[in-house]
């Protein structure tokens, strides 16, 4: 039963939503951004530190929380422009459902493409990250 849905709610997603590796507000950060989905009340805050350190505080569904965590993992040590490029590639994966070998664990979210209403859950942390990067540029 539920084999297909487990493609989306696979072990990595469940694991990262229950016990994220990159959660928590750091003591020091250079910029932050927020994402909010009024439809369901999902909320995420993303903290960016120079040098490519990203942390998150996610309150919402499993897809959004796992996505925030996998994002923080994927953008580690990346420059802001590399992060922006990664966001584009990730959005392509979750809207098309086609995995991108360059994206590693982020491909775990490819299954979200089948659920149009849930794509927003997967992309919300990236919206928050973009906001943080914008703030980082202005002030940094």
């Amino acid at each position, binding site marked *: *039963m*539920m084999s*297909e*849905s487990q493609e*989306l*709610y696979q072990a990595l997603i*469940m694991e990262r939503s*229950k016990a994220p590796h990159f959660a928590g507000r750091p003591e020091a950060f250079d910029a932050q951004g927020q994402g909010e989905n009024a*439809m*369901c*009340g*999902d909320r995420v805050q993303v903290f960016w530190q120079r040098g490519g350190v990203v942390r998150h505080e996610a309150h*919402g*569904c*499993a*897809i959004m929380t796992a996505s925030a965590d996998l994002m923080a993992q994927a953008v580690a040590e990346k420059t802001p422009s590399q992060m922006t490029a990664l966001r584009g590639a990730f959005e392509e994966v979750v809207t098309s459902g086609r995995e991108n070998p360059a994206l590693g664990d982020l491909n775990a979210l490819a299954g979200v493409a089948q*659920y149009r*209403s*849930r794509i927003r*859950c997967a992309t919300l942390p990236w919206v928050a990250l973009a906001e943080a990067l914008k703030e980082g540029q202005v002030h940094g």
Partner: protein
Amino acid sequence: MSVREFNLDEIRKDFPILAQQVHGRKLVFLDSAASAQKPRAVIDAMVHVMEAQYANVHRGLHWMSERTSDAYEAARDKVAAFLNAQAREEIVFTRNATESINLVAYTHGRTALRPGDAVVVSEMEHHANLVPWQMLRDAHGVELRIAKITDSGEIDWESLEAQFADGKVKLLAITHMSNVLGSYTPAERLVAFAHARGAKVLLDGCQAIVHRAVDVQALDVDFYVFSGHKLYGPTGIGVLYAKRELLDAMPPFMAGGEMIESVSYQRTKWAQPPHRFEAGTPAIVETIGLGAAIDYVQALGFEAIAAHERALTEHGLKVLAGIEDLRVLGAAQDRGGVLSFTMPDAHAHDIATLLDRQGIAVRAGHHCAEPLMGRMGVTATARASFALYTTREEIDALGAGLLRIRQMFK
């Protein structure tokens, strides 16, 4: 009233969509409170109009137009009888309940209510019975007051008394059944309460009308609104019932053809109700479809429908109670088959997506009742809602699906 035995197997055959599969599984449709499925009788009635008996209404002098006008007006008679209205002229066709409420807010609201008067709504309103009154408040200077509900999802009478205490309330606009909590409100008592304090009452009957017989004369309610699509009818057709003297005093909502008696460049004389409120070509096919839907539920009779749904609700509550840590919102004494719930760790959207993969359709989100979500201390819930075609087995399937989800998220 009932002329047909309540045989669930036969009833399910009346709804062609129930034979569909979703993701390779039998469809378990538990989202009827959002919009109900349509019986063959409604589909056939609508196809028949378009194939055999269609023209514009109230305009043509030709045979087709006259026959179509007859069928359209026959639907009005059916709605009038269905609600036990005193007269057919008290039935106004709209697009949906939302439009019906807006119609009342824009016409009655701006003429019968004066700046300084107050409108009361409850904490468990659909946005459709909140936002029009906020707009009236902002445009017309009336006050909008919110009557509290109890934790179990019932009217807090103390709070209601307090809202009415200064005598400024001229309208109580309140749900007849919550689309989130499933609570019925005691309509008769509410109407008597408001009337004794000089206020009119509008009941949002979107949910209630589907599950029990409504007698507007017995309730003595001033305005009653509902949508066709939740009552097994088509979308695009809604109803406003209003007492004749209220409609007589109300100016038109929209202007155009059909709503006038005579037009010149100097002066236009409005038509009498209900046509005064039905500007432009109406939803002819949909209105006739609504008539067929009313025939369908009346043939089964609300006694049998309510008995079936009561058993489903009891069963549903029992099944949900068997799932560890699951919280059902509200615990009203008088509640119907609309069950909203939350599970720790599993977000409502995760629940809905995972159930969907098993062919089970539930709704998730704030259900167009954001203030109520805040009142109940949640941001979103999953909601299973039952209809006359729902089976015990479908509720068991929901329970089994939820148990699996519980395991995954534990």
